[in-house]
Structures are given as C-alpha cells and as structure tokens.
C-alpha cells in the first residue's frame, strides 16, 4: 500500500494531477447538478403557480 501511494517517488506529481482533475471535473459536475436542481425547483414551481392562477 505504501509503495502504491509512493508511486515510485513521483507521488507528489501523480497524486496532485489526479487531485486537480478531480477538483476541476468534479467541480463542473457538482456545479451542473446544483444548477440543475435550482432551476428545476424554481422553474417548475413558477410554471405551476402560473397555471393555478389562470
């Protein structure tokens, strides 16, 4: 396990790369899903309120 984490001495570079990729791509994915949730809730609610009024 320690050997695996050590990455033949390149641990810092390898794991930072993977970490950065996780942050960026995961960040985009998270942002996407949060935005989707927000829009879903507000847009559909608003549409339903409009319908009830009319």
């Amino acid at each position: 396990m320690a050997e695996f984490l050590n990455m033949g001495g390149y641990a810092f570079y390898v794991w930072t790369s993977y970490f950065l990729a996780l942050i960026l791509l995961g960040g985009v994915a998270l942002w996407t899903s949060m935005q989707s949730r927000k829009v879903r809730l507000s847009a559909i609610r608003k549409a339903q309120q409009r319908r009830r009024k009319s």
Partner: protein
Amino acid sequence: MYRLAGRLAPWFGGLCLLSLALGLYLGLVVAPADYEQGDSYRIIYIHVPAAWMSMFVYVVMATSSAIFLIWRLKIADVVAEASAPIGAAFTAVALLTGSFWGKPMWGTWWIWDARLTSELLLLFLYLGYMALRGALDTPQGSARAAAILAVVGVVNIPIIHFSVEWWNTLHQPATISKLDKPSMHISMLRPLLLMVLAFQMLYFHNLMVRLRTLILTRESRASWVAELNPETGN
C-alpha cells in the same frame, strides 16, 4: 428532447463510473511502471483523455453551432452552450496535468511545446466563447454571435496548430520526444482507452443534465413545464 436527455443521463453516468473505476484500477494498480519514466507516466491516464476531450468537445460545439446557423435548430445552440464550460474544464485539466508531468520529466513546469501551446490557445478560445456568451444579454443575439465565433474558431484551429508546430520546430531543433511513444504495451493501453471512455461518458452525462437545465430555463413559459414534478424534474 428534455425527456430523452433525462432518460439517457443515468446511463451515461453509470457507464462513466464503471469505466472510471475499472480504468483507474487497471491504470494505477495493475499496469506496470514504465521503464523510462517510472510511475510518473501514470498521469497519462488523465492527461491524454482530457486533451482528447478538449478537442472533441470543441468540435461538437462548432458542429452544433454550424447546424444552428444553417438550419436554425434551437437545440443545437443549447448543445453548444452547454458544452463550452465542460470543454474548458477538460482543457484546463489537460494543461495542469501536462505541467505536472513536465516537471519530473523535463525538469520544468512549463515548456513551450507545440502541443501544450496549442492547448493553451484552445483554452483561450473556450474562454472567449464563454465571455462573449456572457456579455451579450439578449438570448437570440448571443446565440447567433457565439455560433459564428465557434465556427470561426474551428476554422482557425488547424491553422493555429500548424503555425505553432512550425514555430516550435524553428526554435527548438531538438524537440524532446519523450512523450512520443511509438507503441504502448497492451497492459498500459487498455486502461488508457477505458479512461478515454470514462471521460467521454462524463461529458455526455454532464451534457444531458446541462441540456435539461438550459431547456427548462429557456422554455420556462411553456405549458409542459407545469406538468413536471419539481423534485424529480420528470
């Protein structure tokens, strides 16, 4: 389209996670260390897929922009708008991991290598596209203007790439070609292909979710929106 995207999204997401898990396992644990670069080459499993996706997404963006300009198909514009931030993220990942690979291999964080330089310019193109979209507030105006920019960009990319390559060979007669591998062993290649698949699926999944969001925003006055369940969005 909205419903189709909703139905496809979980499939893409599941496939992404599956290939990601398998690709990471094979790439980080099973595949042997490279005899020249040691374990540092394992960055390839995110660098190459990200670089590939950065170009793939731009082509998708430009193609759908062209479709939008020619046939006025609204959904094509939504695809382009949804793709831009994802593509920019892939480009940034390719650049950052390239830099973290370059440090142990070349001893420097950045070299003006032809591919890295082209990738940097590609990031600028993405950012310019997003900035233009953000600056123009009327939806119709920004859609067509952004589409024109995307098409102009895709016409330019080959020229930019060619010129950068040319410039690079002029200034560095002996280019470091450590990254040019003639052939890869199958145990190294398999996880790479899996990771490419995973990134591709990640893009499609993300695209589907963003499509739904954008369609909802744009069509918020349509009557079908009122029939959806706010919790699930279906």
